[in-house]
């Protein structure tokens, strides 16, 4: 039971960093950015490059990688999305999808399809209350929480942050109030891509680096952002938690005692088949949206 909680929190931590950036960009620029998760992949590979090829120690390599990822986010905007500002969101969506494919192929081209690893992050698991958790997992959760806190402070205590929230909420009104949207756009790209880069480094530390690592989580990341209402970073965090727990609890619930009382089975364990692992959070998402069509944290706008 505790084990499920640990695993869920780790997963939620990794998802939340990506979902928060995604939701900000989504609401500000009004399109789902299917290349957003690739910023995580970029962060991971960049850190790998800096630490192995250039021989830096892990921490400076990771920091450099995250900065690079943040900047690249802005670069992609200038190269691709910037030219499509006045177009429909579907066009931007398709463009982002194509961009995502392109970015993945670059890593495939230069590093090949096989997984790579950092040389750090290998400790044996600690045993807490019968459940296992590795130092890396603890680090992932702590880092994510710290990032969320910093982000919260940014959003509420700085002028830039307040301007970002205003633009994300209602960009027309924000501009009318004198907030310069293009600057905000750049800031959001920097921040969102940077956070995704952090997620990538953490994910790589916890698991491994391979070209599809970003796209492997694209649907949970989107689901988390949307479940919590587009534009609401706290909603994205909540959505990430829900997804993390749904994935782990969904497969972890033992239905056998229940089924035994109805006489349907005599086995000791009956789980939802692992082949349906992704279906559980999807089902949760659909139910949540039918129940609250404006998202968990949305306001009814009728």
């Amino acid at each position: 039971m505790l084990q499920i909680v640990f695993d869920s929190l780790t997963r939620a931590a990794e998802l939340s960093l990506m979902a928060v950036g995604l939701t900000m960009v989504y609401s500000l620029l009004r399109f789902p950015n299917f290349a957003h998760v690739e910023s995580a992949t970029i962060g991971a590979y960049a850190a790998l490059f800096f630490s192995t090829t250039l021989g830096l120690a892990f921490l400076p390599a990771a920091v450099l990688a995250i900065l690079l990822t943040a900047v690249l986010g802005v670069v992609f905007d200038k190269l691709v999305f910037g030219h499509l500002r006045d177009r429909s969101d579907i066009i931007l969506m398709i463009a982002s999808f194509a961009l995502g494919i392109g970015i993945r192929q670059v890593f495939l081209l230069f590093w090949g399809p096989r997984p790579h690893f950092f040389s750090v992050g290998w400790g044996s698991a600690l045993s807490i209350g019968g459940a296992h958790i590795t130092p890396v997992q603890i680090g992932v959760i702590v880092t994510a929480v710290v990032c969320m806190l910093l982000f919260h402070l940014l959003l509420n205590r700085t002028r830039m942050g307040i301007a970002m929230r205003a633009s994300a909420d209602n960009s027309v009104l924000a501009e009318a109030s004198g907030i310069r949207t293009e600057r905000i756009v750049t800031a959001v790209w920097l921040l969102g891509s940077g956070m995704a880069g952090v997620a990538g480094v953490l994910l790589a530390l916890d698991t491994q680096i391979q070209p599809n690592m970003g796209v492997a989580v694209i649907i949970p990341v989107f689901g988390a952002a949307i479940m919590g209402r587009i534009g609401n970073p706290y909603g994205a965090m909540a959505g990430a938690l829900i997804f993390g727990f749904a994935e782990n609890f969904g497969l972890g619930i033992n239905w056998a005692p229940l089924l035994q009382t109805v006489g349907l089975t005599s086995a000791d364990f009956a789980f939802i088949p692992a082949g349906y692992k992704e279906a559980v959070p999807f089902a949760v998402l659909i139910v949540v949206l039918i129940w609250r069509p404006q998202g968990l944290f949305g306001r009814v706008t009728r």
Partner: protein
Amino acid sequence: MIQFLIYLLTIISIWGILALSLNIQYGITGLVNLGHIAFFMIGGYVSTVLVILLGWPIGLAMAGGTVAAGLYGIVLALPTSGLQQDYWAICTLAAAEIVRMFFLNTTFGDPYTGGSFGVSDIPQPLHDVFSGAAYPYFYLVLSAVCLLACWALAEWITSTPYGRLLKALREGDEVPLALGKQVRSARIRAMGVGGALAGLAGALFVHFNAFVSPNYFLPIETFLVWAMVIVGGGGSHRGVLVGTVVIQTVFTSSRFLKGVLPVDPSTLGPARMILIAVLVISVLIFLPDGVVPERKRLYSPVRRGGGT
């Protein structure tokens, strides 16, 4: 070479129907369906199961697949048609993935039919009548005829008052609502009709391929259909057909580059995909209205010189 082109044209016909069906949902009605491939999947699988497990004649089974896909569209739309566009989009994607997982984990009959093994030896219609070299031509004609029928249907829908309502919905709910139109039921019907057409494409495909498995219906397939609609110019039926041709051609003709460039396959594979991605982005940036833009239709002559 000629057989390859026949194959290509058949695929373009089938995917053309798929693109048209998406256009009815998006280009006309503005519904962003990210799980469109589910209709394709249901049409194909239902037709297969009806033939293999229940012994239905193929034509009837294809019709069954079409209807099943349409029903799925309606069932999906009923509880969700009130959702805002972006939320609805992710719902459709989630639903499509659930359907795919169902087919991935379910076998039909013996443990090696269905599930991840897929279903093989799917009977082909009129296989005894046209055999050998003639069969591909027959299937191309069949697919092309279906495509033309669907195109005619789509154009007809667009020209009816219902069609105009759908187009108005694309621009936003407010005006139709203000005029008292039934917005939700219009959307549900668009999902049903669009879904049914996509189901027909699915049935055509599985009987052409004689094989089906869940891997044909990964989310990337939906995005390829979207690319066909957008590149061609969402809204214009002619446009999405051109878009289908362009996307399929780009994918196929890029395979021939290796004859021109002597590059290692490990490099060429990713390089080709990068090229395709760049091409799609370029088209989106440089051709604002798609390859064939929608013609704005005037419903009455403009009167000059004042007065209403």
